[in-house]
């Protein structure tokens, strides 16, 4: 029961802090789930994140999977509701007002001003995940090649995930 409360608290806070999407919240998600509450080790966290990426749907599905791992189906539901609840209430209550201030200059100022923070957070997420998933030359190579291919070409991310899985199974 206390786990459900914790899950709601963790993901409810992340929901409000998810400025620029879910990716910038990954470091905090890992900190809470791995370091603070010790629900899993960071390798498992990285594996769950990878599974969520390999599945269809919005990329917040990692919260569902973490909730499920911690407390089964109720955990999955509570974590999902936490991740989308607060931000959804905010969206719902803002959507009617939006057209009134959409052209205001401050909106652009705020949006542009948050970009550097988002870049730092996603970069931190990338560094933390990569350090959890690197166990040797093969995994390091998979991460580097995937990053390079996705940066330089139009290759579909899912194809690179599949290639990574096969390469890991065969080479490691």
């Amino acid at each position, binding site marked *: 029961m206390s786990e459900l409360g914790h899950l709601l608290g963790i993901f409810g806070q992340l929901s409000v802090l998810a400025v620029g999407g879910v990716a910038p919240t990954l470091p905090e998600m890992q900190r809470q789930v791995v370091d603070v509450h010790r629900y899993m080790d960071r390798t498992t966290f990285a594996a769950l994140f990878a599974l969520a990426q390999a599945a269809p749907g919005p990329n917040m599905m990692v919260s569902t*999977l973490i909730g499920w791992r911690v407390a089964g189906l109720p955990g999955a539901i509570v974590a999902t509701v936490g991740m989308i609840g607060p*931000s959804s209430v905010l969206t719902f209550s803002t959507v009617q007002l939006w057209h009134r201030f959409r052209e205001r200059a401050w909106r652009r100022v705020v949006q542009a001003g948050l970009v550097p923070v988002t870049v730092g957070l996603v970069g*931190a997420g990338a560094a933390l995940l990569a350090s959890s998933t690197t166990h040797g030359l093969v995994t390091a190579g998979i991460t580097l090649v995937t*990053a390079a291919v996705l940066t330089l070409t139009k290759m579909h991310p899912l194809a690179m995930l599949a290639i*990574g899985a096969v390469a890991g199974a065969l080479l490691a």
Partner: protein
Amino acid sequence: MPEAPTVPTPAPELSAPGLASLFVGFFGIGIVGFGGVLPWARRMMVDQRRWVSSAEFNDMLALCQFLPGPNVINLSIAMGARARGVVGSLVCVLGLLVAPMMIVIGLGGLYQRYGGIPIVAHGFAGLAAAASGLVVAMAVKIASPLQRHWAGIVIALVAFAAIALLRLPLLPTMVIMAPLSILICRRFPA
């Protein structure tokens, strides 16, 4: 993909969707949306089902990206609210999430059950490494507008250090850095 017709066609009628239509529409993009649902959402809402015009979609998307939270979830909430109020929002978000939730839990079950077999474990390690690469690529992509924007680069490095190296909690970091970043970027724009 066939080319869009160059002959100007009369603007198609936009229609306010019912609850069943909202559910089916978002259910459809939930199951096909591998690696990002937003492009599919646009196709479904604007081109296929004609719930909103392209301009309205852009406006809605701008709000959803501006507000915190998963963007595509916000989009489903906004679309549902517009068409059918609170119930509409709930129906859209449920339609969007129900299939992906079941699929992802199914995958989690497979991982739990077979993750101990060496070749499967190595496959999962490879998958996880590739997923890390995906986030690295994402970081590179969103960092590209910061080229030669020195103030922005410094802020990004400070945020990176605070979270990745010092492991500070996100809430206080954001409370301090978000307003500072907005002020600094306003004073020294890109």
